[in-house]
């Protein structure tokens, strides 16, 4: 097991390296640069800017310097567009926000999604099944950029219960709409995956054996069916968890949360190479890490898998 984990981590390093170099090169090929602005900047000013941010160096040198700073000092450099903030500052401000609403969304999506899926599977073809499937399809087809304004319309403009945007770590009223907007589509996917995999499990041999033994239905489901039925859900949850805790640009923009989802998209639009790289590396690392976690959980749940 330990050897397996170490092996996977070792593979992660070249993967990240490829990710960094590829995104670095792709970004630099995009037309325009971080200092292209509506007011055309005189050439001597542009030269000063390029010199300050090292953009006058050959590309290979820029990559090398960048990698050295990241590896040796854990320093992602200054932001190219936010002049008095470093990439570390921007991530430190935004990541806790997205982490909070992302994590809550994850919990909500898993709890509601699995419950809906299991209920639908057990009560197959009953009204409960139809209701659960109906809810999850509804949630799936309603994208969050449609959901967010509807939520604001209901909870802010009509009922005056929740603030229409903003963020506070102390006041849960700010969390509710972002969590609903972010979690619903994941919840729907989880419900559908759970339902179909539960149905499959319920018709498998070991469940039939359990039934034949005369075990109570409840015990069969909780003890024998749920664990194997959740395997496909778990492989979905790894990447879903990463994309949830790294936020959603729609949620960040619509609710002005100040999370990094918006910073990520803005950095691409602003050609803010440094912020773009910083968040890419963060995302890449988290993705690799949680894929590993998923594999470990797999081994723990499924006795057939051993590392």
């Amino acid at each position: 097991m330990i050897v397996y984990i170490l092996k996977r981590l070792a593979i992660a390093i070249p993967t990240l390296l490829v990710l960094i170099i590829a995104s670095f090169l792709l970004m630099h090929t995009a037309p325009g640069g971080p200092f292209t602005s509506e007011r055309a900047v005189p050439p001597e000013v542009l030269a000063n800017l390029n010199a300050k941010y090292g953009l006058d160096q050959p590309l290979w040198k820029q990559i090398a310097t960048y990698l050295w700073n990241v590896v040796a000092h854990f320093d992602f450099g200054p932001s190219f567009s936010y002049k008095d903030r470093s990439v570390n500052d921007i991530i430190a401000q935004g990541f806790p926000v997205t982490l909070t609403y992302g994590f809550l969304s994850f919990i909500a999506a898993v709890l509601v999604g699995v419950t809906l899926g299991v209920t639908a599977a057990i009560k197959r073809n009953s009204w409960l099944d139809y209701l659960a499937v109906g809810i999850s399809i509804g949630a799936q087809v309603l994208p969050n950029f449609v959901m967010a304004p509807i939520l604001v319309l209901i909870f802010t403009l009509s009922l005056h219960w929740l603030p229409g945007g903003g963020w506070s770590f102390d006041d849960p009223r700010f969390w509710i709409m972002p969590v609903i907007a972010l979690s619903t589509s994941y919840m729907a996917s989880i419900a559908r995956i759970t339902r179909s995999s539960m149905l499959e499990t319920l018709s498998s041999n070991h469940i039939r054996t359990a039934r034949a033994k005369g075990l109570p239905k409840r015990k069969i489901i909780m003890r024998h069916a749920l664990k194997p039925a959740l395997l496909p859900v778990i492989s979905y949850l790894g990447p879903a968890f990463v994309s949830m805790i790294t936020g959603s640009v729609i949620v960040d923009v619509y609710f002005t949360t100040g999370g990094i989802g918006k910073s990520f998209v803005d950095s691409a639009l602003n050609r803010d190479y440094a912020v773009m790289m910083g968040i890419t590396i963060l995302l890449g690392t988290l993705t690799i890490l949680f894929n590993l976690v998923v594999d470990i959980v797999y081994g723990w749940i499924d006795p057939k898998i051993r590392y």
Partner: protein
Amino acid sequence: MKSIAAISAFALMLGSAAPVLAQSSKVPEGTKLAADQTFTYWMQDDLKTLDPDLSTSKDGNDVLQQMFEGLYQQDDHGKLVPALATSYEVSDDKKTYTFHLRNEKWSNGDPVTAQDFVYAWRRLADPATASQYSWYIELMQVKNAHDVIAGDKKPSELGVKALDDHTLQVTLDSAIPYFRQMLVLSSTFPVPQKVVEEYGSDWTKPENMVVNGPYKLKSWKIGNSIELTKNDAYYDAANVTLTDLKFIPMQDNDQALTRYEAGELDFVQTPAGQYPRLKKEYPDAAHAPPRSCVYAYRFNVGPNGPEALKDVKVRKALSYAINRDIIVDKILKGGQKPAYTWTHWATANFKAPDVAYADMTQQERMDKAKELLKEAGYGPDHPLNLRIMYNTSADHKKIAIAVQQFWKQLGVKSTLENYEWKVYLDKLNGQHDFDVARTAWCADYNEASTYLDVNTSWSDQNSGQWKNADYDKLMKDSKTAADPQEDYTKAEKILAEDMPLAPIYAYSLPMLLNPQIKGYPFDNVQLNWYAKNMYKVAK
């Protein structure tokens, strides 16, 4: 101890229930003020910096002028009023200005000195600062600014000197009549040398930032909010009524409107086309004051532009064919005005020339356009094909489609090309790779040269690469003229005759402003507002 706390809490409650405390001299007597003096302001884009020497945006200027005081400010009508510069003298050749500064303190208690200006201006020009707005000090004609920016001279050679703590002397390379008008912009604000040197780029963090204006920084969360709170060390703090300012960045107008309607914003720009409906719904809150920016279509007459546009008849025909009234009345609907000059009509002292096509009916313009195009050799058997370039935005698209239709009536076939912002800028200013491009210009200061300088052959902003010796000469002469306005009028006349660009509309700022907020300067054409002059009345 507990009882003291209880008493003071009680006193506070009393205070907030009935704010009959000493009122600012800016609030008319008998006004009942709101208990909560917070002004929440919408901005389209998040600020990129709070450093006056690095700031480049109008929104940045709006925030910074609450936190800093430079030499001058504008009053409610856009007229110059002294801020730190209580008086000044100018030499006979108009090249040396001596400003006398008021005794003021930074929020950390240090005195504000002439040296703080010297430091700030040198820093603005210094290549090591790499400010994207360093060209502004060159535009101000401060001596040696060009060479300092280019790295050919040391920042210490810049034409700015502290004669003593409260006397600042500025030397110019060449006299410009509007020099003092330029000193309103945040790029010319002083910065606290000690603090900047101690913290480097971290000096604008809330825990470090030191200011000399009526408000200081409380927090800045990117993508969420910038919060300012009253600076009690400000010399005129007794006359500052609004206690808190919040700036919320939101790209989407419609969403900002929702937040306004939820009572979470006091100010919002109305989405395009929605002003008439909102005016009906919120008659007390809806305003559309003129705003000093102009929207235009620029023709590429440079080497990368199409051959056809090098012919003035074609350019004139294209400009005449644009029905500006339809664009203003049917598409934008927010108090904008048709533009036939590049300078905004409301610019201080600006006198527009008699531009023939401005007074024609659209039918006359259209007939003239057809005639001109025919003379230029274009018609059904030799059709003109053009590309219209704009940056991705629903509003630009609407206008481009309208223009496409107007030109179709001329027999001109145009294709629309929209690009993401940075790509568009690169094509416009970098590659000059376009036929006709949407552009806009906003005044840096309230004087016509801020517009007209753009079209000089040496301007970096002249994206269509138009060159006209007479125009260049006029603009050069205007810098030393006793009254430059005459030159400006003549320059506009040349623009109308040579048509390097087709002005389309003069901006307004259609907005909703919470009617409880008083003192907003609607008559200031740059809409430079100072929160210290504003207050919030009770409902």
